[in-house]
């Protein structure tokens, strides 16, 4: 066990794993990913590159982010990062660098050290004051240790806590990992749509599509969301946005209302509703002639299809009770020309429904085919159908991700750790001042976590300032 720990706690191991994860990521990024490119495109690529596809499939690189070939080194890298961090923390407390050094050893400091020797005129006490002033001006925390017999060691320190930036950055990966686990196992992702004026209840059966993690355990919130209003926002000749006003009812009480544009989010109780798209829903009433029995009376949401520059609203609905299938195509702003029927604008200024009614089992035999204007009623066979209203529907991604707060917290912790690491370096300067009444000898040494050439410049500047002020040579 200790051997495994030692292996993982080696920085060389961590580096090798980092390289391995990078190489596997490159492979994963270059090879088509089945879930991203789609089944058809993947099959085409597979047919064109059979050998590579076979190898990729065998190694799991066609879905590399969930393959063990990728996950195993990733987990090992995480474990190694944690072990390395632990070792560094233990090492830091064990060999904690002191802000004091032996005044006699300044010339032989270990690590990225700088050293210089100066001589000047004047009393030692005055030189100490000058050194203190110069160091304070350079924003060092200064302390003076009298060593006796007109010998003083002045210590300047900055960035004392710099070490912890790197540790915090590396430990943040554990937070992100825990968040990712929570996200994968205990979350819900779904899509739903609401017709203007109607409600959606946050429960399994109301979603168009829903995916729940194995630890989600159907913990739905069961509040209702009503789409109160939906409208386009125009700017010049463009529609630049569609906005939705949503109201939440929890326990039959209105608890929140907000308006969101496309791409914006509405959040209640940790459940995020991300406004995605919209379409039209038509209200259709189907009755039996004579008996007046209502077979259908409600809003039917039409799918939105994009073909080149044209958007069409079309769908079908089966009325099982009557054995009828309604194929509908809506022209929100109907116009007819040489090319056939079209819509003059995407707005419901002059809605027409192109309707075809067939029997569910009836094959091609059509009971009705034709245009139905908003407010119009048509009769076919024993049925009466009215087209009574058009409204928008809006669709939303619904995300209830328990891992997100942890992941995003981990991101911020990591970012600030990294920023801290880059901005704060521990720097120590030690100036030994010794001399008589009119002659002074100054030894200056320093050490930093920053690259030595850059620290050398800082060190030289400080030494130059001391030189100038003590009038040394």
């Amino acid at each position, binding site marked *: 066990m200790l051997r495994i720990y030692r292996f993982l706690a080696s*920085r*060389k191991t*961590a*580096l090798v794993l*980092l*390289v391995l*994860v*990078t190489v596997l*990521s*490159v492979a*994963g*990024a*270059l*090879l*088509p*990913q089945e879930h*991203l*490119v789609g089944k058809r*495109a993947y099959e085409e*690529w597979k047919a064109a590159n059979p050998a590579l596809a076979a190898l990729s499939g065998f190694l799991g690189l066609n879905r*590399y*982010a969930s393959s063990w070939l990728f996950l195993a080194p990733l987990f090992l890298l995480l474990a190694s990062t944690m072990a390395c961090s632990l070792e560094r923390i233990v090492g830091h407390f064990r060999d904690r660098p002191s802000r004091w050094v032996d005044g006699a050893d300044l010339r032989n400091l270990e690590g990225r050290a700088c050293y210089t020797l100066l001589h000047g005129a004047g009393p030692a006490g005055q030189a100490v004051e000058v050194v203190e002033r110069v160091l304070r001006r350079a924003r060092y925390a200064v302390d003076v240790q009298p060593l006796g017999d007109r010998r003083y060691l002045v210590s300047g320190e900055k960035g004392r806590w710099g070490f912890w930036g790197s540790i915090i950055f590396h430990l943040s990966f554990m937070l992100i990992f825990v968040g990712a686990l929570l*996200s994968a196992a205990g979350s819900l*992702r779904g899509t739903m749509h609401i017709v203007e004026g109607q409600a959606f209840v946050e429960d399994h059966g109301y979603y168009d599509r829903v995916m729940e993690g194995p630890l989600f355990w159907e913990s739905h919130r069961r509040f209702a969301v009503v789409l109160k209003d939906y409208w386009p926002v125009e*700017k010049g000749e*463009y529609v*630049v*946005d569609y906005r939705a006003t949503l109201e939440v009812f929890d326990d039959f009480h209105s608890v929140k209302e907000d308006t969101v*544009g*496309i*791409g*914006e*989010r509405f959040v209640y109780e940790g459940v*995020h509703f*991300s406004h995605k798209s919209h379409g039209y829903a038509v209200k259709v009433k189907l009755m039996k002639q004579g008996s007046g029995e209502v077979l259908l009376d409600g809003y039917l949401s039409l799918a939105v299809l994009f073909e080149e520059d044209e958007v069409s609203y079309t769908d079908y609905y089966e009325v099982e009770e009557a054995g009828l299938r309604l194929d509908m195509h809506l022209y929100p702003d109907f116009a007819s020309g040489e090319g056939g029927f079209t819509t003059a604008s995407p707005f419901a200024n002059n809605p027409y429904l192109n309707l075809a009614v067939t029997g569910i089992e009836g094959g091609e035999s059509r009971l009705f085919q034709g245009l139905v204007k908003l407010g119009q009623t048509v009769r076919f066979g024993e049925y009466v159908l009215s087209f009574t209203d058009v409204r928008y529907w809006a669709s939303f*991604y619904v*995300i209830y991700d328990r891992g*997100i707060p942890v*992941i*995003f917290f981990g*991101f*911020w912790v*990591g*970012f600030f750790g*990294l*920023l801290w690491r*880059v901005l704060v370096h521990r720097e120590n300067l030690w100036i030994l001042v010794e001399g008589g009444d009119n002659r002074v000898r100054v030894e200056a040494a320093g050490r930093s976590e920053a*690259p*030595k*050439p*850059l620290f050398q*410049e800082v060190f030289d500047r400080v030494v130059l300032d001391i030189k100038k002020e003590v009038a040394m040579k």
Partner: protein
Amino acid sequence: MTEAELILFWVTLSAYGLAAASFLFGLIRKGQGADRVGVYLAAVGLAAHVAGLTHRSLLSGHLPGAELYELNSLGALLTVFVFLLVQARRPALRVAGSAVSFIAALLLLFGYLSNPEISPLPPEFRSEWFFVHIFFSFLAFACYATSASASGLYLWKSSYPDNGFLKSRVPSLEILDALSFRLVSFGFVFHAMMVISGSFWAYTAWGSYWSWDPIETWSLVTWLIYGIYLHLYLTLGWRGRRMALLNIIALVVIVLNFWGLGHLPGQGGHY
């Protein structure tokens, strides 16, 4: 593009082009005066650039980042900005100005040729995190590009150790090495912010903070490459030519990631 924006665009492009020529002239004729002129020209170009992008943002109603033109333009602006900051602190690095100004001019021209017209912001881009993401991605690029320029100078200087001009005008090899590292460190922080803000944006736009699409994966790959660079420097103590080479290779990967990814089969992403 309005007339005012077009004028500012051409002023910017001309200033960057002239700055590149001036720095190059200074390099060939070994004159520091030409370098100073190059700095002034780059600063004039930057001022016109800021004015042009501000004007465009006021017209479009959003920060730059919606189209390829805006992305490239922002990239050029931040590259020149970072270079001017770095050279103010280290005038000896002005010799890298020809490469930096040339890259900026090229980016600007590339964006202009792609389509400079203003179009409405697509819905998925309507997130403040998107603009944070764009800003930090190009800030990281600017640091990496300036760092790679320093690494390029390192390779050049170390190949001709007896060249008098390089000895007198270019910082010492140790300083170039340390500066490359320092700039990569800052780029790495901005890159991290880019990845983080990108995942916030992806979460608001697509409901997923990370989906391993090629853009995301390549962005992670480049971050990891720079992570390897930093660990090699800090942990194994690597210095010198191999680090300079790695730095330049990492920048090439970044360039391919953003400008070349769309040309690879089966790739694609946010745009």
